[in-house]
């Protein structure tokens, strides 16, 4: 191999001479730099659009928040003016917009109308509950979906395949909130083996282990509901990905080497089939947010989703606005993460 000249990026031959070894990482980093810049810039534009649209939705389309704040009692014009000044609503729109952008970027999100507390504190307080519920649910759904999806795709058309696809579609068709209500009815009301809702019981001793067990006990039904609805999506993704690989020559080669069927599947087909699913899993993060909002609402789980729903009905506009930005931003960042990850796991992308 010569030290100079373009070497194909996917030729993973051991680099010979020292100068070549020194130059190659630089070149790859260059390509990566451009790739990274492009996607980070795209995500930044998306985030800006979220900020704009949230201001547009909540300050321009929605009417005067003073009416909502003071809905129950009569207010004098002076009180009104004072309240407007306190909330900064008497200043020109562009100034409000500027304050809002700066406030959001510095995590100063204002106070909640409902709780009369900084929204940032509310979010920090409720974030762990949401991460616990949707994180556990998502990991379970991905593992279950991929496990079954691999096997259904591998034995396409078998009774196993048809049964699992039918079961998955059936659960996928069930509305999340309804499944949650039925699960509560059966397991909490009739059988009484799990708590109806919430995250902890007030009677639990404050030590770590009793608390952890209590939370785990409360977690079972929401996670069950959430996983049941979501896993079918992953099953279908993995199944079709396996089907794309199934006729490949390298699988015939692997079989010709004398590998057992499940070895061919797990060592050769699955790694290749996993590749295209990575982005789909990250893209599905929007669905995860959707699912967690509904699941939290059914089970009164004290997370961000139920905070969002409460804020709609109060109406607590600063909270709505902050959570709208937070939910949207997290999906945009998750997709960005998927794109960056893809660079490392799929060498083909580096050529284009």
């Amino acid at each position, binding site marked *: 191999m010569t030290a100079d000249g373009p070497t194909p990026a996917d030729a993973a031959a051991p680099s010979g001479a020292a100068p070549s070894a020194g130059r190659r990482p630089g070149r790859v980093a260059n390509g990566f730099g451009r790739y990274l810049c492009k996607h980070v810039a795209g995500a930044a534009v998306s985030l800006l659009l*979220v900020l704009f649209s949230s201001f547009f939705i*909540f300050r321009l389309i929605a009417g005067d928040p003073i009416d909502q704040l003071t809905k129950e009692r009569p207010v004098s014009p002076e009180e009104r003016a004072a309240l407007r000044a306190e909330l900064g609503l008497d200043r020109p729109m562009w100034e409000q917009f500027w304050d809002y952008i700066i406030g959001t970027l510095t995590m100063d999100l204002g106070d909640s109308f409902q709780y009369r507390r900084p929204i940032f504190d509310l979010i920090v307080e409720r974030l762990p509950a949401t991460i616990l519920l949707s994180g556990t649910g998502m990991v379970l759904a991905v593992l279950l979906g991929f496990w079954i999806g691999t096997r259904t795709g591998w034995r396409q058309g078998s009774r196993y395949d048809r049964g699992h696809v039918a079961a998955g579609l059936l659960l996928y068709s069930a*509305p999340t*909130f*309804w499944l949650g*209500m039925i699960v509560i009815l059966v397991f909490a009301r009739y059988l009484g083996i799990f708590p109806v809702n919430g995250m902890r019981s007030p009677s639990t001793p404050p030590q770590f282990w009793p608390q952890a067990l209590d939370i785990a006990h409360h977690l079972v039904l929401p996670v069950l509901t959430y996983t049941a609805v979501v896993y079918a999506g992953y099953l279908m993704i993995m199944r079709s990905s396996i089907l794309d690989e199934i006729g490949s020559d390298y699988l015939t080669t692997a079989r010709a080497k004398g590998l057992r069927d499940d070895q061919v599947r797990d060592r050769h087909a699955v790694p290749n089939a996993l590749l295209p699913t990575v982005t789909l899993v990250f893209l599905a*993060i929007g669905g995860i*947010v959707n699912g967690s909002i509904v699941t939290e609402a059914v089970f009164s789980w004290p997370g961000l989703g139920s905070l969002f729903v409460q804020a709609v009905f109060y109406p607590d506009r600063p909270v709505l606005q902050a959570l*709208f930005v937070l*939910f949207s931003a997290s999906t945009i960042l998750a997709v960005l993460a998927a794109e960056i990850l893809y660079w490392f796991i799929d060498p083909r992308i580096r050529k284009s």
Partner: protein
Amino acid sequence: MTASTPTPAPAASAARRRLARARRRQSLARSWAAYRAQRTGMIGLVLLGAIVVLAIAAPVLVDESALSVTQATGGRMEPPSAAFPLGTDEVGRSVLALTLWGSRISLLIGLTATVVAVVIGTAVGVTSGHVGGWYGWVALRVSDWFMVLPSLVVAIALLAVLGRSMATTIIVIALVSWSGTTRLVRAQTLTVQSRPYLERARALGAGHWHQMTKHILPNVLPLVLASATLLVPSAILMESSLAWLGLGDPNVVSWGSILNRASDNGAVSAHAWWYLLPPGLAILLVVLAFMMCGRALEAVFNPRLRGESA
């Protein structure tokens, strides 16, 4: 071929139209045969037909007065009986009547929202793929943006500020679901675009409008039909989630709003399974029927999936 193509006389053009129609009928018959060969697709179609007939016939089967809160004849959450085959709700209305009438609103919102979303998505997809350039880039970015955003969050936020009515529900659902169609249509437009017959049309002086409506659109529509059929279930699920959260039109009865009343009035703690099961199962069946039809259509129209029948 020489340049002596005869100018289309009326008779010749009529003959050509007849030929085109015959060809269309032929390909339709082929697609139908391919569809009919799929058992799940046919089951879905029959199921869907039955549900639609019930929804249309609802006024004949049960009088609208059964929905009135003041004229309710039953007791509070009575279990199923001869008079009320599926029991009653918290004010004594028949759950069967509610579910039957609810199908009209749920289907109406789901279908209308899908039509709006698909029309927007197809228009943006074809134009952005065909025109390309600056406009195409912006259209692609915007549809990507909508695709990434969590749809329920956007829908809840918009309904919270726009107010609750059937029209806003439809607009909001359409707004969060058009982007998938755009992506699909754009990709298909780009492949059609590079085919020789489009070059021929351009060489013969076809304008953009002619190219888009006569050459690209007919090639894109089958895939649009399949994806629209798969969009209806998600629109219906979205509507039911919004209505269950309490963001539906307060003046109409849909499956989601029945379940909203059920949970607000403690149907779960009252063990009123007859109040919870019918509307939920109805949503499940409709969604399942549309998915079965949509997957079968996809298998017919998407050559990549051909040979795979579930």
